[in-house]
Each structure stands twice: as C-alpha cells, then as structure tokens.
C-alpha cells in the first residue's frame, strides 16, 4: 500500500464515519454539520483521483451551498435543537438489513468484477479547469446547455412554490 492509497483509505474512513453519524445522530442540526464533513472528505477523495476541478466544485456547491440550504430548511421547519427521539427498533433493524443487503450486492459485484484493476494515476491527465473546460465545451456542450435550461426551470419552480397562496384577487 503506497502513500496515495493510505491517504485515500484514511479519507474514505473519515467520509464513512461522518456519513454514519449523518444517518444516526439524534441531534439533527449536527447531522447537517456532519454532512459537510462527509462531503469535504469526498472532495478530498476526488482530489486524489486527479479530479482537481471537481474537488473545488464539490466544496463550493455542496459544502458551501447545499449544506447551508439544508441548515436554513432545518431552521425554517423549526427542527428541535436538542436530541430527538430515535426511530423504533424494528424500523432500525429492517433498514439496517436492507442497507446491508444493498451494500453486500454492490461490494460483491465491484470486487468480483474489478477487484484486481489498478488506476494508473501517474499516466492520467489531471482534470483541472483547462482539461474539463475543453471537454465540456467541445464534446458536452449540448447537455451543458440543456442543464442551464433545467437550472432556470428549477429556479422558477422554487420561486413559484415559495411565493405562497394567491390572495382573494387571484394575484
């Protein structure tokens, strides 16, 4: 195991540990903060896998925007600050069973099919702004434009949803 693999294993452990706290902690504001830690660790994993631009996009959009949005939603829905009652034991066991089965299928498939493959990180082109930008605006420009329309639609939809009910005059 070389240095990069060791760093990846440590970051993966951080991501999995904070992810576990996201889904189990009884204080739901803490869950949102642990989500920031988990997403940051995944961004560092991107960095190790040569996806440099994606790591910064992940920090900007996920940690910067999505987590803040989630915290706002928790505040606006008056989520309890203190510990909330946990889920019933039967539901926890059932959910853990389904999750373990899903994880076992994914792990077996991935390891049986691709367990011996090696990523050549030395020979890979680093996905910095220049490489991703030229790929995005040469090969992927049509999906990119479609995505901008989708973002506009989502923006309009969010405004319409949060505007509230029309009053008596229909405005």
């Amino acid at each position, binding site marked *: 195991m*070389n240095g*990069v*693999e060791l760093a*990846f294993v440590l970051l*993966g452990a951080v991501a*999995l540990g904070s*992810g576990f706290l*996201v*889904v189990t902690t009884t204080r*739901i504001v803490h869950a*949102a903060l642990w*989500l920031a830690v988990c997403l940051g660790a*995944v961004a560092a994993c*991107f960095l*190790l*896998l040569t*996806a440099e*631009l*994606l790591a910064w996009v*992940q920090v900007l*959009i*996920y940690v910067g925007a*999505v987590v803040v*949005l*989630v915290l706002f*939603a928790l505040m*606006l*829905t008056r989520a309890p600050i203190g510990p*909330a009652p946990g889920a019933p034991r039967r539901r926890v066991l059932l*959910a*853990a069973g*389904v*999750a373990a089965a*899903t994880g076992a299928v*994914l*792990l077996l498939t*991935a*390891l049986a099919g*691709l367990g011996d*493959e090696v*990523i*050549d*990180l030395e020979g*890979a*082109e680093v*996905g910095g702004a220049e*490489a*991703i930008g030229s*790929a*995005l605006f040469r090969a*992927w420009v049509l*999906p*990119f434009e479609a*995505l901008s329309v*989708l*973002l506009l639609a*989502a*923006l309009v939809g969010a405004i319409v*949803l949060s505007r509230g*009910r029309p009053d008596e005059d229909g405005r």
Partner: protein
Amino acid sequence: MRLAFPLVVSALLFSLGVFGVLVRRNAVLVLMSVELMLNAANLNLVAFDAWWSDALHSGQVLTLFVITIAAAEVGLGLAIVLLVFRNRGTSDLDDLGLLDESAEQEALPDDWLDMDGAGRVAPGREAAS
C-alpha cells in the same frame, strides 16, 4: 492505486444513504441521505474516469452535471418541504399520508375535485356533486 478502494468506499457510502432514507422520518434528513447516495455515485464516476484515462473526461463531466442537478433538486425539494410545513405544520414523513388510503387523515369533502386552492367550489360545478 487499486480501483477497489474507491469502489468499496462508494458502495459503503451508498448503503449508508439507503439506511438513512429508510430510517429517518424528517423530510430534510431524508434529502440529506439522498445526497450521500449521489456522492457515492459521483465517487464511482470519478474513479472509473481515472481508471479509463478517458480523453473526453466523460466521468468527471457527468459528475459535474450530477452536482448541478443535485443542487437544483435540493433547492426544489427544500421549497416543497417548506411549503408542506407551512400548510401542515410538520415535516415528518409518517404524518404526511394524504395519498395513503389507510392513513387516518381529515376526510376530504365529497366535491374536493372541484375546489380551487382556497377551498371554494368552482362556479358551475355545484350540481356535479
């Protein structure tokens, strides 16, 4: 680096997300678990991109698209959650069973199909009920 490392991390992260979606009942926390699952998929995409040394960077560009769509999804999802909270006073998914026939909800009036948003029956439809 062995390809197995990112694959194992992403599989475990995905199953954590599945567990969160099934066990959490607060709608915002369920959305956060969905984010965990999306991140597991992103990690896989980036790992396979690096493994394949793709000249078009398909995996990384697709990850960029997924992050954008996730941002749009969270914005819309949280707007819906806030609207539901304003109307019902709760964001607990077990209490939001209006589409569930077995749930004990306040019964809808017989002519609810003809009502507008303010609970008035549209003119000309009174006789239909």
